[in-house]
């Protein structure tokens, strides 16, 4: 019988486990990245001024997105947990909606609105401002959800104590301080995610590193050049992330001494509820409604809902399969990673640094690596390397860094004394995990599933390169019809997609509310 104490003791298995899990994420990309080091690799890309300036733009954009996301997402995440307000379920569904929408769709929506408002608006949005607007719309929900999950982990008695000590202002400040580190990391992840996304840069005319890598792939079919650019981008991210990791790592999680006996209870506070509703309303109006209006304006000229409905019927099953599969893979691997890291500070730092670095890898690297691997493997491996399962695993691995950060924090917040007590009383490891730890980690697992499912659904590149023929998802269907399809069809598809997504999210938040999550 394995003792529960193994969870709190050091051991080589931790390093081996962490290395294996992190390598599994990077392994598919190795064939392409390897070309960087194989002769006759030219180093000219490092000296290209165009790539240098694109890299600079990308870093500025990533830092801007991180700052905006943190500034707005953190307070909103705290407020939505602590206070009751009207339309909570719908607001939360709306706020998380941008994670489901591929960034290029939001950008096209904004470009469409700007084109109708006049040249000056288009001019104002071109370049960095437009990209910042679109990318922040996706960064804010990421921070909000992680701040939400972190705040939900507080004990009701802690919040009540703060309230007694100094009222709502003290509650807000104390909780914001408590969740600041995970929110800070989430903002970092949101910023890093922008580095691998070429869509908004292409639409708003901003030269970014992702655009340059896309050009190497799609205009020059030069995988080696793309690999060199990618290595440079990742190295820069790691260099910039190092201080962030060193700062955040010791503060990532504070252990709770006892199992949380009472969850945070949301209270009614008229003034705060008003502020929360206004803030969420402004975000929804600017971040979501405006681009959606741009996308759906052509509906004024007629609808083609029947055709759009057919597309939904054709792709809904696969879309759900990919989202759930990716969420499951990321959740399981994220929790395994957290178990392996335990309370080892050095491993925690490695994991967070790796998470930031891995997220900066363009999804095409992993996807094309898997495609090459499948092409080299025998036919009997197809159910594993060329099926919907492959897409689920690839998407799960792509967003494992997001799952890892949340899981590390959740694991770190558990108390080592629980394992000690269970070990002393001879409780088997399986029973301890099943009866004590997993129920505590379940809400975090739910958030990870939701987050990764949303992000995976919007990841067009991985899906386009890996989906088995005929097994496409709805966002890819929207993407592939939008070039020349009538605008009414594209608008109808967008509306059907957004409405369905809203329905699913509203149900998810309503269920969560029923369970006081």
């Amino acid at each position, binding site marked *: 019988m394995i003792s529960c104490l193994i969870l709190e003791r050091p051991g080589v298995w931790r390093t081996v486990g962490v290395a294996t899990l992190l390598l599994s994420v990077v392994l598919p990309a190795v064939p392409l990245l390897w070309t960087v080091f194989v002769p006759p690799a030219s180093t000219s890309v490092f000296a290209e001024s*165009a790539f240098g*300036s*694109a890299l600079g733009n990308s870093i500025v954009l990533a830092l801007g997105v991180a700052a905006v996301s943190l500034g707005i997402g953190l307070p909103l995440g705290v407020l939505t947990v602590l206070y009751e307000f009207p339309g909570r379920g719908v607001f939360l569904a709306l706020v998380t909606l941008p994670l489901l929408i591929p960034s290029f769709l939001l950008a*096209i929506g904004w*470009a*469409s609105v700007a*084109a109708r408002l006049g040249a000056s608006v288009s001019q104002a949005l*071109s*370049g*960095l401002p437009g990209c910042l607007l679109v990318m922040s719309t996706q960064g804010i929900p990421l921070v909000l959800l992680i701040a939400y999950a972190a705040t939900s982990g507080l004990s009701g008695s802690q919040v009540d104590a703060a309230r007694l000590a100094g009222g709502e202002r003290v509650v807000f400040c104390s909780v914001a301080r408590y969740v600041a580190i995970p929110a800070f990391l989430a903002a970092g992840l949101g910023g890093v995610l922008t580095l691998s996304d070429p*869509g908004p*840069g*292409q*639409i708003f*005319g901003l*030269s970014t590193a992702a655009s340059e890598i*896309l*050009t190497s*792939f*799609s*205009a020059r*079919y030069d995988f080696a050049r793309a690999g060199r650019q990618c290595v440079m981008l990742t190295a820069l991210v790691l260099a910039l992330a190092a201080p962030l990791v060193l700062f955040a790592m010791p503060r990532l999680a504070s252990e709770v001494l006892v199992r949380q006996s009472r969850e945070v209870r949301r209270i009614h506070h008229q003034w705060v509820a008003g502020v929360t509703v206004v803030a969420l309303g402004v975000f929804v109006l600017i971040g979501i409604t405006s681009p959606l209006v741009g996308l759906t304006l*052509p509906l004024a*000229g007629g609808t083609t809902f029947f055709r759009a409905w057919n597309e939904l019927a054709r792709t809904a099953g696969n879309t759900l*399969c990919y989202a759930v*599969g990716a969420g*499951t893979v990321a959740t399981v691997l994220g929790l395994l990673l957290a178990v392996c890291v335990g309370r080892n500070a050095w491993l925690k730092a490695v994991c967070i640094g790796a998470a930031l670095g891995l997220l900066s890898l363009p999804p095409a690297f992993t*996807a*094309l690596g898997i*495609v*090459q691997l*499948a*092409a*080299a493997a025998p036919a009997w491996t197809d*159910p*594993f390397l*060329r*099926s*919907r*399962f492959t897409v*689920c695993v690839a998407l799960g691995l792509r967003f494992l860094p997001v799952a890892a950060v949340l899981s590390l924090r959740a694991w770190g917040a558990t108390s080592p004394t629980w394992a000690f007590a269970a070990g002393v009383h001879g409780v088997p490891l399986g029973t301890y995990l*099943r009866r004590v730890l997993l*129920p505590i980690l379940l809400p975090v697992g739910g958030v990870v599933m939701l987050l990764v499912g949303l992000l995976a659904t919007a990841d*067009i*590149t991985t899906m*386009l*390169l890996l989906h088995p*023929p*005929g*097994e496409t998802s709805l966002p890819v*269907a929207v*993407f*592939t*019809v*939008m*070039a*020349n*399809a*009538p605008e*009414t069809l594209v608008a109808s598809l967008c509306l059907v997609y957004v409405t369905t997504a809203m329905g699913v999210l509203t149900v998810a938040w309503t269920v969560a509310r029923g369970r006081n999550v």
Partner: protein
Amino acid sequence: VNWRFISYLVMVFFAGACNRGSISEVVVYTSVDDVFARPIAEQFTKDTGIVVRLVPDTEETKSTGLLNRLIAEKGRPQADVFWSGDPVRAAVLKAKGVSAPYHSPQAEGLPPQFSDPEGHWTGFSARARVLIYNRNLVPEGQEPTSVMDLLAPRFKGKACIANPLFGTTSMHAAALFAVLGEDKAKAFFEGFSANGGTMLSSNGEVRRRVAVGEFAVGITDTDDVNVARLEGKPVGMVYPDANGMGTLIIPNCAVLIANGPHPDVGRRFIDYLLRPETEKALAESEAAQVPLRPGIPVPEVVPSIERLKPMAVNYTTLAGLLETLSSGYLQEWVARQSR
């Protein structure tokens, strides 16, 4: 929490996800727009009973795209056929050793200048690169007639083109270099910038933004303009340079993938694509494509190939030229257009 039940559910889910399709099928990757390719594929299934597993791409330039997938799958391809929207991508596949030669008996009557002489790709129904203009902004009688009109003072700050590193715009750029020569082609791009021209992300964007009046004129493909016209947008179309260097014709290309899983069915699908009936169907579709065979009846809005003056280009050499330009002048030009 019933962990056994959850584990069972997870296993069933992933077992289902591992499920593969049937074998009585043909896998077709296509860069032709889904809305135009799918009806042809569905008709093939109705006529033959063979399921078409269609994997569409797009010319919207925000993803790494299917051509890379085909190149990466070269060792053991999943695709039987690549239905390309232009000959340049087909030529890239030939150069990378991804395609196999196939001389279809159905290719009879198709002009040989639109196909690979070695049979790696066969051209059929075509689009053309055209000028799109907003009828509310361009008075009657002052319509542009040449791509060089984008440099005219009357279109200062009102002209747009798509990113010339991607899609059919890249092919058009290479064709300009081939036909005009390097100096004049560079002068065109520099003049476009000097005249306040704007580079947009895709041909679809050109269509959308000319249609709403943000730009007066742009260069795009015939199917883009036809879709806008069908939607009642105030746009007009001109086949440029009818009295000069001619209009760039972009044929669809059928490519057989080397070592594909269903080569016989793949050939059968290519035969189906190259039939006169398919050319007629594509002419009558929203794509309004021009049949390359003479004598095929076409709707009023579709010109017959005899009425056009095609630009005299060698499609096989365009791919090589484009590769050089993409890593040279065009890349520099695009970098200057972006902020």
